[in-house]
């Protein structure tokens, strides 16, 4: 069970959280202007990073807030958590 540090409530067990997949994916400002491939990229294609990935979690059994986290997909270790809208902290690996 992962131990996840909610930026608002502190460290809680994984079973209080909901996983939201890769972070920093923004919806095309004007979907009508993007072609089918670009739309598929937005909707379906993910980096599936081997190593450190920026991903989002929601503290669904707590404050209900979504936030971002940097987690290693090999060790499961969290390197950082940061609020929605913030950029990923630099220089982590």
């Amino acid at each position, binding site marked *: 069970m992962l131990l996840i540090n909610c930026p608002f409530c502190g460290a809680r067990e994984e079973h209080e959280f909901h996983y*939201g997949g890769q972070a920093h994916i923004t919806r095309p400002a*004007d979907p*009508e202007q993007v072609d089918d491939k670009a739309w598929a990229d937005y909707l379906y294609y993910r980096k599936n990073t081997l190593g450190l990935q920026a991903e989002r979690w929601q503290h669904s059994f707590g404050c209900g807030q979504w936030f971002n986290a940097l987690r290693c997909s090999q060790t499961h270790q969290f390197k950082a958590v940061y609020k929605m*809208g913030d950029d990923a902290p630099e220089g982590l690996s």
Partner: protein
Amino acid sequence: MSHANNRLTQGGLIDRQQTINFSFNDKPYTGVAGDTLASALMANGVDLIGRSFKLHRPRGIMSAGVEECSAYVQVGNGARHTTNVSATQIEIYEGLNSRSIHCWPSVEHDVGAMVGAFSRLLPSGFYYKTFMWPAKFWNIYEHAIRGSAGLGKAPEVEDADTYEYRYDHFDLVIVGSGPAGLMAARQAAPSGARILLVEQDFKFGGSLLADTAKIDGQTPLQWVEQSLTELQQFANVTLLPRTTLTGYYDGNFLTALERVTDHLAENVRRRGIARERLWKIRAKQVILATGSIERPLVFGNNDRPGVMLASGARSYINRFGVKPGQKAVLFTNNDTAYQSAIELQQKGVTVAAIVDVRQAPPKALRQQASNHNIPLISGSVVHNVLGKKRVTAVEVAGLSAQNTLTSEQQQIQCDLVIQSGGWTPTVHLFSQAGGKLLYDEAQLCLRPDPASIPQELQSVGACNGHFSLTDALREGAEAAHQALLEAGFQSTQANWPEADESSSCIPQALWRVPVRKQGTKRFVDLHNDVSSSDVELANREGYRSVEHLKRYTATGMGPDQGRTSNINALAILAEEQNSTIPAVGTTRFRPPYTPLSFGAVAGRQVGEFFQVRRKTSLYETHQQAGAVFEPAGLWLRPDYYPLAGENREQAVLRECRAVRQGVGIFDGSSLGKLDIQGPDSLKLLNMLYANGWNTLKPGACRYGVMLKEDGFIFDDGVTACLGENHYHMTTTTGNAETVYSWVEEWLQCEWSDWDVYVTPVTTQWAAVSIAGPNARELLQQVGTDIDLSTEAFAHMQFREGTVAEIPARVFRISFTGEHSYEINVPSSYAPALWNALIKAGANLGIQPFGLEAIHRLRAEKGYIAVGLETDGTVTPFDLGMSWAVGKKKADFLGKRALSLPELTRSGRRQLVGLLTDEPAYVIPEGAQIRLESAGQTRSQGHVSSSYMSATLGRSMAMALLENGLERLGEKVTLHIDGKTVTAQVTKPLFYDEDGGLLNA
């Protein structure tokens, strides 16, 4: 079987005064307090415990602990039947009944033993090579295989016991209460840190319980006692006996199984007290002091009852006061076992000889042996054991420099063979935690690689490859000191007592003792009947990686997790490849360390508590009305309300007629409800729904469909405008939570600058619908301050007021096609409202109706049901609902996907109605509509909803059919369980086409 009493008259950690009655294979025996089942059976001279997995060979007791891979039994009856437990770990209790496993009719006379005769036909993997012809016979072969496989019987009665979880947090968790563990606890206790010490045994002390060396001049037991007394003084220290640390996971998350009642007589196990408690622990620091396990040697017939680990024998003599035999032979390749032999001799077991693989054992040991008049045969091996159900003698021969048997040989009569092939650190938890192991060439064992400490943990003492008592004490103290500092506590300098034992374990490698007669079985894994020749075969056939070996031979795959077989198997494999253990590789140990009952893993979330039964505040009202409930996701909803003697169909038809002819009342409280407020509410609605919302005025309602970004329908419902920037959205019951979290995700992650507030109010409001020609009249009669005239309150309008003197929100909306009102009141007032309506409606023919009725009524109107007409692959256009898509809207979720080639192509399945030529026949839902062209057939659509309609007096169905909308009037064919059904394609609308009733 001899019934000799092997109990010593004195000594041991047992209470001879306190006798305990138990049974084995239906024979009564007595043991004493402090016994395990194994020690008690041994005291009673029971040698034969069970039969082996594949070859049904007789098996006895080979150890005194968790490493046991031979003496497995089943205990308890009926609701407490527990299978495959090792006799060495069962603490006996009054009335315990135990039985052998895997033998018939009895362990003494086992028919299955005939298999032994064919053992040469059954090498590892034999089943991959045969049973292939004739192909159709496989299931017959397999039936036989299945019957002969397995160990104990599976339980057949529901468990009489319950199970608990315990979440907890500790600064320091210490695993094992041997010298290293106890020392660590004593060092750490004064710091005030929250400390947990777990011990799988029912007595603390680990190896010290059978040891005789001195610590600080005290006996080991005195030192253990002193340590415990000291530790009990500290409120910050929790001591847990009978608790096995079973799993080590990410972030120092640990699972530990506490056996709470298994050691108690069944009549004193109290209700409400769980049988087992699963601890789920977050630890800042962990100290592993899990000790080590003695390794068997691989020699001829080394599985015979009476062959046991030297450490086991020592345990029985010193801890349990039982003689494991009368006349013993020690077979060893290292120093450590000499002490066991000497202590056996001292306690009255004749030690006929010590057979030492080494040409020249240390002088000191040779001296000790002769002091105790024990003949020492060095440079020799026990290459074969005689006797079937108990050892009768051993064959000893000299060992040449080339590891072959020399001509000098003798036979030694004995009934006990104690052996030691060196020691294996218990590294399972370290490995589970992600640690790497390194091979210790000198001690011939795998131990933790100090360079790869995976988490906040330290291994100390024997489990770290440091076997001496002195090392254990020192490492325990030092590790505790270190851990405290890491966890942010004060710690006084580490200090530890002196011990007079610092023996080392440098065995002479002899992985396979040669045999005289080819085919003599030398077992590596007693549990799965894997012998050295099986390992050789696997390697010969190319199964050379250690994982292949494990899987091909099943080495280490039994309940004992290969504790005694792992290294021997690796070593033999390495020898076969002229390679080394590190080169052939080691496997990572999988949790749990010891098997965990399903019950313990599931905890209390079973039976009544498996999952919540969500109920509306009208649940009991429905019960009183005799409702039959239907699970709908987590909810329980009334399906129908049968009158005396009515079946489901009759009741549902009656309910439907009531709605069409009088008035019906329906509990829609479980529908999802979201309260939406704030300046950007409208913006939100316009993005969430496919249709437009700009024109929705306060007091009005509108239906909308939601699409996922893939363009497919995901939910639908009615949203009302309560006031400026204030909306009340409803969703389907099943999607209430999904829609809410979906909305939250968009608002928090994508539209975080929008000024809008969404609150889920599903259970704040109960929703009671009244539908039917008499609905308005009913509302009038029950009393309301709302003007119900069509002019004042039209269809798809919303009003606030009181109903039956209860403040309410009334929505004039309909899912039945009838004139209908949905009345929302705070949940706790719902029964009052419902009863008032029933009362007022008595003379209007009011009847409650359930899920099935409302489904039929909405189908008559062609209203879709999410989950029936939609399945995540259906667009609004497929359902002929282009009116529900705001084509002029710049954007909404799912809009982009609606223009993808696949979603716009012709030939998509579209919603139609079906009327069977045989009016009485109801097509089963899910039935497929067959297309036959050019001899080919395929499905061209399926029936999404299908019912007998009370209103039409015939069956009706909705279906998704290729190009359906262009095929009205066509005939289609369905083939249903051998029956051919023809039906006409119609519009999906069977009742009140112009909607006159709704607007009246």
